[in-house]
């Protein structure tokens, strides 16, 4: 439809321009091309500024124009693209590159079950074009969104190859799964890990209730709509090749003691000279160097698109390979995508969106990261003969040699073939009606393999049965959606009515085999065998089914291009709930006022565009129970064998081990949004400011229960209320011309607050470290706030130990906690709130320019207002290495520190206290890229319409207070433990070079 409008516009403009008289004095020619793919733009208007002298570009984008003087300025415009002004000077050839105008009013946005003119949208929708993310060397689209959209907080799940990310839209709205819903080319999905970021045409984020309500029970955490590239009508197909290659490293090393320092610390710990002269120990082993490495990352993509009035296609193939900075981790993905749209006749259209992705992941034993952090430097990974050393003696370490851990656990792979897509048919009838039947499918066949060989490194690191654990999974999901759309325009009214009915079913099946006793250790023998000859081979399996059906409806009404109304209702029924609580109703409405279209604004010189929005709606969150499929039914666990009889035989035992809650119902959130959008100075400055109040109630969450209940796991309850209030602020300045530049920023202050937990209790305790809760979730504070003692200082003298309040065993040099309730003793009642894991502000900046073929982009992002609990530092089951700062600043009689305790191992210095709470704020240069597009005159001879090379860096620089690898770490998905760093796979920095060629 957009195409059609453009064609009309094209003809009109052409007629207008041709009718104008030409007063040429000097001839200029050139070509107008698309910035994205270098293809020629047909029908762009090239006008000499201040005159009516102009022309329309031809089929190849070429033009020739007689201009009046050397001071002439060309104004090049094309609907949907930002206009460009460029002085001619003495040039005879003036090539012009047009980019899509992100500020344009008539931009079309994808809103779920349809598209809408941006000017008509009453909800808060953030948009990112594919070109703003496809240059980022990230394995997933989620990671690429980091810092791009106000109100969308992205934390990379980890630096693990192929990792996704934790995405939070407008704060953390629930105590459980707070992940947004993904909709990929119209098909609902629960992740986007398989999507190749370079296939993305645009990403729309539905942030408020008016926008997201059409996804009802799954819209409460926001919706991310990913649209992959579609074919465009072109004379000739555009064929592109793009590739990059680079290398990744960890962003920093943690400063731990070297061997000499460790020896000194150990002597202090045991109070004697275990090492007579520690300084002779020297540097020792830096275990981090033994497990981390520089790792390559690369991608190569071939794509083609084109089409005619009747048939449009876009096809691509991509291979992505990312090695991990931790040894023995790697991710490979090959994707093929084919999107087709076919008009069979005037009333019947069909199409497909198909993606096939093949992935393989080698999983490293990530426990080695914590192992390397803890392992004393006085050991070496291997002895002189190259055998792994036993580092357990003399300290009684319960951890193994991390290098051996990585080596022996390397045969660990996940492989998957995922076929994702949809087939649709459109029938137009009675002039204004369109019926669409869309059948979507998501088929994922996966396989895992984990072989553990025989090894004997030490008594705590031994495997006496070599063992293969392998299996397959089959995840089948289909959605069938029938929608009927009525669309009618009158002079002053525009009306779209949508009604639909959908059904969805999912089946997950898995089968696994465990085998020991192989006829040898040759690689070709390490497989399951035929069943008849191996009694050690054991099978396992499982199946889960679920279904949802829904009815949905939406009305969009626009009056006089000024006043807009959107009303939405979705009714969902889910098999995850018991029959009585199965149905949920999710209504919303939105109002919009485009003030600049009012007659009284016609003379305003300031605003190109000024629009106000208001919306309110109710959404559900079914996915908060995604990992527990029958939460209302207690599942009986079997295999709990009792042993009886003289033969000591197994007797089957079965019972209810995890308690359930039959009264579970929908978790619901209501959201109010007030927004303003504006464009000033010829739309060069554009912005969007929203205020929202997002209130989630009946929150379903697994809530810790006392152990006397006797449930092995925590049941799910509709318990809590959480409020997120905040602002989404986006400002962009963009100036196009010979020197095109832009600068933008987004700011998202958010306040997260637990409003209510439930009537029975005031707190939820979680993240137990050595038996003590490290977080509590309590009314009035952010979710998962840290909870523990406050350090008052360090005991300096025996007299202080004798007289000041203490826990019991403290000695001189140990941490002294605050006696908060003033009762003269330190006990658990003296614990308090000691920090919040949730940022109060997230922000991003981006800037760039294009000039004479050069292009430069930089993205900066940051968070502030949050803390990190350095949980890895508290684990002391034996004598582990210490961090440099704990050593350098430690209390000694000569250094009477009042903040850092003496060297100890275990004990109350490692109790949960604010000693382990660190500032989580950071600002990071997310990406920086410099590219150069070779002049067409050079490349044309090689039949290349565009050739660009670039260098880029990701996470090049970070300013962080936190002492760990990164204030972002792979623990963010569980809101109760989001701020605890347990030494997971750290995020990485990388440098790449790349090339883009369009034929």
């Amino acid at each position, binding site marked *: 439809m957009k195409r059609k409008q453009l064609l009309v516009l094209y003809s009109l403009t052409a007629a207008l321009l041709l009718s104008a008289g030409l007063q040429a004095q000097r001839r200029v020619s050139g070509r107008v091309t698309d910035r994205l793919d270098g293809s020629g733009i047909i029908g762009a208007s090239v006008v000499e500024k201040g005159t009516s002298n102009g022309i329309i570009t031809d089929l190849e984008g070429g033009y020739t124009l007689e201009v009046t003087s050397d001071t002439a300025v060309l104004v090049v415009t094309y609907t949907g693209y930002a206009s460009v002004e460029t002085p001619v000077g003495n040039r005879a050839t003036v090539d012009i590159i047009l980019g899509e105008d992100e500020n344009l009013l008539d931009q079309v946005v994808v809103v779920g079950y349809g598209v809408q003119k941006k000017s008509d949208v009453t909800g808060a929708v953030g948009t990112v074009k594919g070109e703003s993310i496809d240059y980022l060397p990230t394995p997933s689209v989620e990671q690429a969104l980091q810092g791009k959209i106000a109100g969308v907080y992205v934390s990379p799940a980890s630096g693990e190859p192929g990792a996704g990310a934790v995405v939070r839209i407008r704060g953390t709205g629930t105590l459980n799964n707070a992940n947004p819903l993904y909709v990929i080319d119209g098909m609902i999905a629960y992740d986007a890990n398989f999507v190749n970021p370079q296939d993305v045409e645009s990403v729309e984020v539905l942030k408020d209730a008016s926008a997201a309500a059409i996804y009802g029970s799954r819209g409460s955490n926001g919706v991310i709509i990913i649209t992959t590239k579609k074919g465009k009508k072109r004379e000739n197909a555009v064929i592109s090749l793009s590739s990059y290659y680079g290398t990744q490293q960890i962003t920093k090393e943690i400063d731990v003691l070297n061997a000499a320092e460790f020896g000194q610390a150990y002597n202090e710990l045991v109070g004697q000279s275990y090492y007579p002269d520690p300084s002779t120990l020297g540097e020792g082993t830096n275990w981090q160097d033994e497990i981390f490495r520089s790792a390559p990352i690369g991608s190569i993509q071939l794509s083609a698109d084109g089409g005619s009035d009747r048939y449009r296609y876009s096809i691509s193939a991509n291979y992505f390979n990312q090695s991990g900075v931790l040894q023995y981790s790697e991710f490979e993905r090959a994707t093929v995508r084919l999107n087709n749209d076919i008009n069979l006749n005037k009333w019947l259209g069909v199409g497909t969106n198909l993606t096939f992705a093949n992935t393989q992941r080698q999983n490293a034993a990530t426990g080695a990261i914590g192992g390397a952090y803890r392992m004393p430097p006085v050991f070496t990974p291997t002895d002189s003969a190259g055998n792994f050393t036993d580092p357990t003696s003399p300290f009684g370490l319960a951890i193994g040699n991390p290098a051996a851990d990585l080596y022996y656990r390397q045969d660990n792979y996940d492989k998957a073939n995922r076929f994702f897509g949809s087939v649709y048919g459109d029938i137009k009838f009675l002039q204004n009606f369109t019926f669409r039947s869309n059948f979507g499918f998501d088929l994922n066949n996966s396989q895992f393999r984990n072989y553990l060989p025989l090894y004997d490194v030490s008594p705590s690191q031994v495997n006496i049965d070599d063992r293969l654990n392998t299996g397959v999974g089959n995840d089948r999901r289909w959605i069938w959606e029938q929608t009927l759309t009525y669309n009618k325009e009158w002079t002053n009214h525009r009306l779209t009515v949508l009604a639909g009915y959908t*059904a969805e079913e999912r089946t997950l099946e898995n089968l696994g085999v465990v085998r020991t006793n192989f006829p040898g250790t040759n690689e070709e023998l390490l497989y399951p065998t035929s069943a008849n000859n191996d009694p050690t081979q054991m099978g396992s399996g499982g199946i889960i089914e679920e279904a949802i*059906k829904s009815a949905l409806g939406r009305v969009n009404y626009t009056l006089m291009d000024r006043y807009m109304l959107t009303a939405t209702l979705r009714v969902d029924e889910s*098999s995850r709930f018991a029959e009585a609580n199965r149905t949920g109703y999710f209504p919303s409405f939105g109002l919009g006022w485009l003030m600049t279209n009012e007659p009284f604004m016609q003379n305003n010189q300031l605003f190109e565009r000024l629009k106000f929005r208001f919306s309110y709606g109710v959404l559900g969150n079914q996915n908060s129970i995604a990992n527990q499929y029958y939460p209302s039914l207690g599942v009986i666990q079997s295999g709990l064998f009792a042993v009886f009889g003289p033969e000591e035989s197994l007797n089957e*035992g*079965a*019972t*209810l081990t995890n308690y359930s809650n039959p009264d579970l119902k929908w978790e619901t959130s209501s959201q109010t949004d007030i927004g303003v959008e504006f464009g000033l100075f010829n739309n060069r400055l554009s912005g969007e400011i929203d205020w929202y109040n997002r209130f989630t109630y009946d929150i379903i969450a697994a809530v810790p229960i006392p152990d006397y209940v006797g449930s092995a796991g925590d049941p799910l309850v509709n318990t809590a209320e959480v409020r997120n209030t905040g602002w989404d602020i986006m400002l962009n300045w963009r100036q196009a011309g010979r020197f095109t530049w832009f600068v933008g920023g987004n700011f998202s202050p958010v306040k997260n607050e637990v409003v209510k937990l439930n009537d029975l209790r005031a707190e939820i305790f979680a993240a137990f470290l050595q038996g003590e809760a490290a977080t509590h979730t309590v009314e009035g504070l952010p979710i998962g706030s840290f909870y523990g003692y406050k350090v008052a200082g360090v005991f300096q003298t025996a007299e202080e130990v004798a007289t000041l309040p203490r826990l019991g065993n403290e000695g001189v040099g140990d941490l002294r906690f605050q006696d908060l309730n003033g009762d003269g003793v330190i006990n658990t009642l003296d614990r308090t709130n000691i920090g919040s894991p949730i940022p109060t502000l997230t922000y991003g900046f981006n800037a760039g320019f294009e000039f004479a073929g050069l292009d430069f982009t930089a993205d900066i992002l940051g968070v502030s207002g949050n803390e990190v609990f350095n949980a890895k530092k508290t684990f002391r089951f034996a004598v582990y290495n210490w961090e440099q700062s704990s050593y350098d600043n430690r209390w000694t009689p000569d250094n009477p520190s009042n903040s850092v305790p003496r060297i100890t191992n275990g004990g109350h210095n490692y109790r949960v206290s604010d000693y382990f709470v660190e500032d989580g704020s950071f600002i990071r240069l997310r990406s920086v890229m410099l590219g150069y597009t070779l002049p067409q005159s050079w490349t044309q001879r090689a039949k290349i319409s565009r050739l660009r090379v670039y260098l880029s860096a990701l996470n090049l620089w970070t300013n962080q207070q936190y002492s760990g690898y990164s204030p972002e770490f792979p623990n963010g998905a569980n809101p109760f433990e989001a701020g605890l760093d347990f030494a997971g796979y750290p995020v990485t920095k990388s440098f790449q070079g790349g090339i883009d060629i369009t034929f």
Partner: protein
Amino acid sequence: MQPHISSLRNTLLSAALLLAAGACQKDFLDRTPLGDATADTFFASEEQAVYATNAVYQQLRQWDCVSLPYLGVTDILSDDADKGSTPNDAPFLIEMDNFTFDPTNTSMGSVWRGYYIAIARANLALQGIPDVDMDENLKKRLIGENKFLRAYAYFLLVQWFGEVPIITEILGGDEYYTQQRQPLQDVYAQIERDLLDALEALPEKSAYGSADLGRATKGAARGLLAKLAMLKKDYPKAEQYCLEIINSTQYSLLPKYSDNFLLTGENGAESVFEITAVALEPVDGVTGPGATPYNMVQGVRGIPNLGWGFNRPSDNLVSSYENGDPRREATVLYVGEVLPDGSGQVQDNPEIIGERYNQKAWVPSHPGLQDNGPGNIRVLRYADVLLLAAEALNENNNPTEALKYLNMVRKRARGTNNFILPDVTVTDKDQLRERIYKERRVELALEQHRWFDLLRWGRAASVMQAVGKNFVSGKHELLPIPQTEIDLTSGNMKQNPMY
């Protein structure tokens, strides 16, 4: 052409609508777990009644019930054992050994959780089994077994923590956070009620079929009733239950003391109740389906590598034996000693100071790793019953009978060596009491009875302080309620004094 096209269009439209409606039958949304029973379909058959009961036995051999935390609140807490292992391993047990623990120490949290899980499983079985259509005799027995197992769990909890919540049904969601500790007398009454019901319902040991050897018996119920009576200082009742066991002729002392602790002695003539385990080939590489961690955590650490080496026999215990008492050799495994099955010799491990191990927890080589422990945990031996009988009879002023049972135990320990462990002849009540107490210690050493005996005798403070422990009278007689329970009930549950 036009009519043809519009008829195709109508056909397509109608077909799509019909198919869409048809895809969603009424039961489209009724999904249940496949391959798993659910709480509302369970207890449909006799087998399931048995399964639910067996699952209680299974819980009792799990980590929370019988491993490091359990040893921490029994032997290591008492004067019988030190923490053992290497000095820095498991600091939480050092705290138990030295009475420096507080409510966050995981020992308390684990046993509390472990035994309340056992109670919950018994509660579920006791709620479900009565309505099962099944053999009435079997039903009665299963109910008896569950009541016995529930009473056993409460009996441990009450001795450790004092007043505890009494939970006898599966709690509903609105009851999770509201439970309170109940008066001691109510806990005792609950235990006694369950045991009396069990006594009535359960068969004697010999009345079970061979395949059911190891299930709770009348004798086991009487044994716990006797112990409960001793705890309440109701000596006539204690005497009565002990004599009933003795007169039932179900049990006898094994000729050789040390045979009790070999695999061949499991569920032997002397066994009144055991928690059963077996080492079968592991399916997950580490532990088999019948394993317990009890043996591993106490096994020889070093060479041969049989375990973690916790629960070291204390110097005080070693020196408490009479000269030549063979029970010391049977209880303590020294460096240089040949293992009971002759498979090897314990080598010196320089990392362990004063290396020695609990020989009663030793098990011979078996399938799987050390984690796959096969040893039954001897909860109640006939010798224990005889000594209880002696103690009760003495308190009931019947020294003659008391001496009879005391000397039965000594005689067996003595074996054929008449130069050691002479019969006790003292009849003075106080002196005889001391002899019985002493005998209990050495006969039952490192079988996790000592701490409870010290408490029962009111001697925990004096004995522990005498061995230099930081025992505080009025505090350490009770262990602290786990901090998680106090936290989760928002203070609804009160802590024991001075914690």
